[in-house]
């Protein structure tokens, strides 16, 4: 009976809400998907956060602060959504720190120059937008609602990045070189953000049936490439792929083979920054513990006194 209601709700393209009956697999998959997304937002504060103190102007510093604050906010919306399914956010943080839950592979690359801040906004947030816009129609209500809020804010992230790069491209030859170097380093990892190719993505079919995934990895990756090529042209940079060319028959850009062994390596913990990212998160959690405890103790004490 409950299962029929669940299936019918999905079939009618309506949302599943936290207290509705749902298959255990759906609940588990949703918790994993939302937690992984939340962790990505939280870990994603680090690569750009590293440049806040070194931003070249007050304007750029204020923008970067606002952006990193947004990432924190996105993480918190998402942990809230995961909690509606019975997950506990302290527990999720522990799973992240202990390496039992993953986050996006992209944040395991270093930000070597300030141009990286721009390229992250343009390409990494651009790829995130491709991934996330369809998730605003996720069948799980709290996740879909969080995604709507997040997508509204991501647009600022992408535009500030592109504007930053346009500014650098109008600068000195050394600045233009810096932008090209950053594009060279981030292009392929950005394409990997969409996950393994469809043929090697065994959960896609079930996720599409549950409407918690609306397009396949390869569809979204293609959409991202098609969007990015003209943007790269307008910026005046070259995307580091000799096989990238318009295919009139497919009406899409063809692109080169992705180094999937690199994605596997980074996902399994062996990227350039994996250890540092987790160590940093662990340190922040440990060093913040006394604040959380003190606030809880203060609240308990005040509750004991009649208002």
């Amino acid at each position, binding site marked *: 009976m409950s299962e029929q209601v669940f299936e019918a709700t999905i079939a009618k393209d309506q949302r599943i*809400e936290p*207290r*509705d*009956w749902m298959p255990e697999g759906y609940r588990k998959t949703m*918790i994993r998907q939302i937690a992984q997304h939340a962790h990505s937002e939280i870990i994603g504060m680090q690569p750009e956060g590293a440049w806040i103190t070194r931003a070249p102007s007050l304007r750029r510093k204020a923008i970067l602060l*606002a952006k990193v*604050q*947004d990432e924190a*906010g996105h993480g*918190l*919306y998402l942990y*809230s959504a995961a*909690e*509606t399914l*019975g*997950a*506990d*956010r*302290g*527990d999720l943080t*522990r799973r992240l720190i202990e390496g039992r839950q993953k986050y996006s592979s992209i944040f395991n690359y270093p930000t070597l120059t300030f141009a990286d801040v721009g390229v992250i906004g343009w390409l990494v947030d651009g790829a995130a937008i491709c991934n996330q816009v369809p998730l605003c129609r996720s069948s799980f209500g709290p996740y879909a*609602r*969080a995604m709507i*809020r997040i997508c509204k*804010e991501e647009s600022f992230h992408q535009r500030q990045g592109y504007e930053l790069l346009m500014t650098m491209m109008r600068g000195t030859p050394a600045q233009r070189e810096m932008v090209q170097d950053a594009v060279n380093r981030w292009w392929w990892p950005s394409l990997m953000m969409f996950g393994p190719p469809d043929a090697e993505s065994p959960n896609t079919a079930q996720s599409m049936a549950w409407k918690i995934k609306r397009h396949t990895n390869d569809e979204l990756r293609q959409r991202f490439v098609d969007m990015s090529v003209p943007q790269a042209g307008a910026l005046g940079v070259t995307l580091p792929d000799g096989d990238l060319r318009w295919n009139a028959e497919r009406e899409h850009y063809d692109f080169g083979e992705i180094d999937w062994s690199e994605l596997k390596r980074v996902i399994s913990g062996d990227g350039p920054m994996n250890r540092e990212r987790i160590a940093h998160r662990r340190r922040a959690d440990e060093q913040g513990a006394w604040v*959380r*405890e003190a*606030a*809880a103790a*203060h*609240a308990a004490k*005040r*509750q004991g006194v009649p208002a």
Partner: protein
Amino acid sequence: MSGEIKHEWPLFEVFVRAKRGLNHVHVGSLRAADHEMALHHARDLYTRRNEGVSIWVVKSDDVVASGPDDKDAFFGPSGDKAYRHPTYYAIPDSVPHI
């Protein structure tokens, strides 16, 4: 999930009035040690871009809600009371202002 690990701070539901004249609308939840901190966190989390002019926070444990199973008992009876709607009553087109 694992029962013994509990978050230190209770959960609050957040409601925001987008502008004067509108209702407060539920926008999400957050963790805070007490109501005052919940208000401050709600400001930082849900109104970074002029989304509101007023915020309510309510401890999630204090919310009493109808469940999916109550749907028929709660909302079913109104289905056969079409006479509660103005369109139930046939009035000739020639009658003005009604």
